[in-house]
């Protein structure tokens, strides 16, 4: 039994909602699926075609998309993830985000693969999807509520405690540039400022309940692959650590490899006494009270935390990712583990992206340290490193656009532009979006983040595997296209190729809905193309090869690149790390004295563009490259604006 639109794996329908006219329409997913796979693949093609360059992120004509790929809602390991897309509020170029979710499977069970939102409601509303019943409901009474309050109120109002949703907090309502969308009470579509986009549409939430089914084309073949892959995931070299501590388990290794952005990236390792204070084994033993995991995942890396004493006593919340440690213990130098739990929850409740919060506050604290900012600039607050009260107050001010928070809420790049005083050197961002990734300690990771189309991020090409240790070298070489320098973090050679591998693997995962943690993103023992191809072929009934997947991902990459070229002035100059990375040697830790070199970076960028068949000088794709990918339309579009690569 295929679904009503003749597809396996997919739910079959795309739901389009125009909030200006309150009109709702459907189109078949089949229109896009063979070419764009689903999730982020379909989202980005729709955005490329329908969001014109003159449309601003907060204009009603901008789109906001959510896409659950063809493996979401099935037994495929880790396939719970949903992609979101829109014009990027921070870079004004291409925007994408991705989150674990209960929302995604539920959306599929309701019969939809994607939701495409456009327009702007006249008053606050939320969207209620209950199988075929679609309703735009009044949300006036929800405006101003935090994420947790919103989720509880909607579940109460609809009379079902198991309804899943995405929503925005006060930050999104106030159109803060670094506002994000939160799934249920604590999983973020973090990057690119989609909370403000949703707020600009007067859309508070999307709630969904689905009672349908997803069917795969070849059940026995699919389940055989599921069994094999679950076994493979359970024997990944990092499986036990991630199962126990989640992504914060990376902390000791990040410290050893200079991967922590301490005091706004001035240092790349924590002082020893501070590392001991925020030890994650102890935090886990002290605060963790339960597990949380998502559909299909054999690992289950999430946790619930409860604080029973101190300033934040009584707080019970879903846990945090390594990013929270990097942002608040790292960038802002806080040594209190309970604060990490608190601030992560506080940002979630207000609907703020933690990377943007710590990016902006980190910039401000460094400016204060250097006398560029004074307390008079900051509403009387002394911006001392590690001051938890100041950080909480600035976070609140960002969400409500109050005083100095109104500037910080713009993100560090825009804030530095507003302030002037040569403070831009301390604004750590890529293409205008606050940076989380440390890019001075691992050349491959740095390249992946710097060329990322959405402006930073490590989920669209940055190889996290560089810091793995004790892995089988033969297996490593075999998995990563023959690259032999995977663990040589200071080597430039081979890194363009390695990034090329991950730019494709990550896009396939983002399209199909698979969590990167289960893949070979962190260890060569994880899932790679061959395993994911088998799941996809068995699920959809469309026999596919690894080379088909790589080609599909290359097409996605070129669509994103073209979106950036049509909407912004980005070019080769924007694929460099922030100046600090090339000017300041690493001051402490195992890599003390090392720094990125411009001439080596130049050569590596040449290799990267050449690999993609993009013009080395401008970074623009060539007609030949695009036509070989059956993207003639994009070549024509770029030619019209003079942005077709020569080569």
């Amino acid at each position, binding site marked *: 039994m295929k679904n009503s639109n003749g597809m396996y794996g997919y739910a079959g329908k795309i739901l389009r909602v125009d909030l200006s006219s309150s009109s709702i329409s459907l189109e078949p997913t089949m229109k896009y699926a063979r070419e764009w796979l689903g999730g982020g693949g379909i989202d980005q093609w729709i955005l490329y075609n329908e969001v014109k360059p003159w449309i601003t992120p907060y204009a009603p004509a901008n789109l906001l998309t959510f896409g659950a790929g063809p493996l979401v809602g099935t037994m495929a390991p880790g396939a719970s993830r949903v992609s979101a897309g829109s014009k990027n509020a921070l870079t004004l170029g291409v925007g994408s985000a991705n989150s674990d979710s209960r929302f995604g499977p539920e959306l599929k069970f309701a019969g939809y693969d994607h939701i495409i939102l456009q327009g702007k409601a006249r008053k606050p509303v939320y969207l209620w999807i209950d199988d075929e019943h679609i309703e735009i409901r009044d949300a006036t009474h929800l405006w101003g509520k935090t994420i947790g309050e919103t989720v509880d109120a909607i579940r109460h109002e609809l009379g079902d405690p198991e309804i899943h949703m995405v929503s925005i907090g006060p930050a999104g309502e106030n159109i803060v540039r670094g506002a994000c969308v939160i799934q249920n009470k604590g999983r973020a579509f973090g990057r690119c400022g989609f909370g403000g986009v949703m707020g600009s549409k007067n859309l508070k939430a999307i709630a969904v309940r689905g009672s349908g089914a*997803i*069917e*795969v084309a070849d059940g026995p073949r699919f389940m055989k692959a599921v069994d094999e892959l679950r076994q493979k995931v359970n024997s990944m070299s990092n499986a036990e650590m991630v199962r126990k501590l989640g992504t914060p388990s990376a902390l000791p290794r990040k410290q050893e490899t200079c991967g922590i952005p301490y005091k706004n990236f001035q240092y790349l390792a924590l002082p020893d006494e501070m590392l001991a204070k925020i030890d994650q084994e102890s935090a886990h033993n002290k605060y963790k009270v339960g597990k*949380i995991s998502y*559909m299909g995942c054999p*690992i*289950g890396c999430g946790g619930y935390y409860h604080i029973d004493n101190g300033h934040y006593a009584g707080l019970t919340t879903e846990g945090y990712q390594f990013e929270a440690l990097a942002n608040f213990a790292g960038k802002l130098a806080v040594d209190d583990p309970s604060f990490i739990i608190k601030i992560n929850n506080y940002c979630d409740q207000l609907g703020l992206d933690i990377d943007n919060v710590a990016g902006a506050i980190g910039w401000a604290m460094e400016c204060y340290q250097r006398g560029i900012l004074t307390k008079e600039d900051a509403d009387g607050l002394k911006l001392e490193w590690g001051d938890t009260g100041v950080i909480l107050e600035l976070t609140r001010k960002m969400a409500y656009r109050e005083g100095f928070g109104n500037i910080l809420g713009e993100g560090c790049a825009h804030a530095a532009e507003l302030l002037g005083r040569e403070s831009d050197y301390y604004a750590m961002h890529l293409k205008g979006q606050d940076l989380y990734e440390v890019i001075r300690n691992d050349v491959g990771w740095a390249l992946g983040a710097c060329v990322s189309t959405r402006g930073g991020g490590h989920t669209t090409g940055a190889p996290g595997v560089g810091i793995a240790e004790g892995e089988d070298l033969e297996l490593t070489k075999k998995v990563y296209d023959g690259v032999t320098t995977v663990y040589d973090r200071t080597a430039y050679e081979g890194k363009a190729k390695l990034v090329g591998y991950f730019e494709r693997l990550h896009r396939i995962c983002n399209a199909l809905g698979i969590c990167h943690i289960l893949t070979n993103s962190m260890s060569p023992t994880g899932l790679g193309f061959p395993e994911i191809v088998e799941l996809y072929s068995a699920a959809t009934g469309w026999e596919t090869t690894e080379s088909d997947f790589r080609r599909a991902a290359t097409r996605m990459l070129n669509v994103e690149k073209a979106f950036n070229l049509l909407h912004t002035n980005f070019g080769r100059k924007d694929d460099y790390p922030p100046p600090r990375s090339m000017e300041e040697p690493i001051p402490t830790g195992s890599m003390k004295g090392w720094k990125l070199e411009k001439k080596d970076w130049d050569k590596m960028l040449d290799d990267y563009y050449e690999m993609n068949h993009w013009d080395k000088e401008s970074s623009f794709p060539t007609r030949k490259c695009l036509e070989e990918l059956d993207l003639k339309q994009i070549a024509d579009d770029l030619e019209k604006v003079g942005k077709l690569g020569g080569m």
Partner: protein
Amino acid sequence: MNKVSFEATGCGGCRTCEIACSYHHKKVFSPNLSSIEISDRTDKPGFSLTFHIGDVDGHLGCDRCEGEDEPLCLKYCNISMREKLKTILQSELPEKLAGEDKR
């Protein structure tokens, strides 16, 4: 008695068991066609587990995975909860059902 509930100690609420169960019954993935149901506790972090014994509200009654090598809910349960689920399946569920029969 149409359903029996248990505290799901160690469960992370991934609900993979639900769609494994519906696959056993109908060869599709659908929590609504499952004999097992995972519910988020509202009073504290954690989940509870309900077995549907008879076919009610669209849910299909548990047939102890007739024809399978082992119950699929157990096969696909996360390691953190598997022992607990094994105990429920092997002793707690039969005890509750036996108790119900005697009444």
